[in-house]
């Protein structure tokens, strides 16, 4: 019986579980769509504005050039900041 069980387990494990995929996709998606609701930081929009103001002092960037995300990875949250600099910076 234990042989059959482990065989069943083996067969199950070899296929990716679609529920696991669903959970991962939702976690990534909802962290971005509704950060304030998730107990995550709701200061993101304000932080983004302030960073934008600071960066704009030196480089000409618009709001769409800044991408900011918070990802949950295991036990910690990762703040990801991505700024696309224009080709010719202001002197």
């Amino acid at each position, binding site marked *: *019986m234990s042989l*059959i069980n482990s065989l069943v387990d083996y067969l*199950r494990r070899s296929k990716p*579980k*679609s*529920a*696991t995929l*669903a*959970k991962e*996709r*939702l*976690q990534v*998606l*909802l962290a971005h*769509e*509704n950060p*304030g*609701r*998730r*107990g995550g930081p709701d200061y993101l929009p304000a932080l983004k504005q302030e960073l934008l103001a600071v960066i704009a002092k030196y480089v000409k960037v618009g709001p769409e050039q800044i991408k900011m995300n918070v990802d949950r990875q295991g036990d910690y949250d990762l703040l990801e900041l991505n700024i696309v600099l224009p080709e010719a910076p202001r002197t």
Partner: protein
Amino acid sequence: MTKIVVITSGKGGVGKTTTSASFASGLALRGHKTAVLDFDVGLRNLDLIMGCERRVVYDFVNVINGEATLTQALIKDKHTENLYVLPASQTRDKDALTREGVERVINELRESFEYVICDSPAGIEKGALMALYFADEAIVVTNPEVSSVRDSDRILGILQAKSKRAEDGAEPVKEHLLLTRYSPKRVELGEMLSVDDVQEILRVPLLGVIPESEQVLQASNSGSPVIHADSTDVAEAYKDVVSRFLGEARAMRFTLQEKRGIFQRLFGT
């Protein structure tokens, strides 16, 4: 003190009306005077699920427009004492629900009812916003499926931003998660999000789990809320939900697949 409870979800077809009918009936069965309101103007269905469609004379919009009194429009439920249904209008559009009008109706209901259950339409437009605006508590009906979970997350955000309690800076709307159409077997096979998965994603206290069941269709066929389908899993699950809502401790049931022995697996059904 009357409690206003919205049954909402964002997504359509997840079981809002089924839940509204059974939850309101359950509260009434427990002796609480309850009114259940259909906010789906233009697409009314609560009357069918409650089995009172042939007794509709006046509706929610008639009351708002002063064409009928609340007493004239409320339909006394034939299955349960203490329960009244206010049907939506079938001929009007969602703009017929004004905030002032809805507030007047709800305040009048406060005078004689303990619970007012608001059956929200799907979506996040006027009808849905109106259904949740005056809520003290919200039951967010969710299927263990990606689009339903996403829409529930959205509607939770709206509850926290656009309800009267949010606008007034009052204590926030109390949120409850109700997982419906749950299939323990598929969860065990890794084909369906589990209760724990959905709870971890939405982070809302769990009010209950309603198993997927053929009984729900049979109940709607016959116009009798499924909570009356005695000794079925769904009816028991809804009764547990009502008990938990009333503050009683009830262990979660119907969330695990029954373990079957090797002989049953091989020869059983």
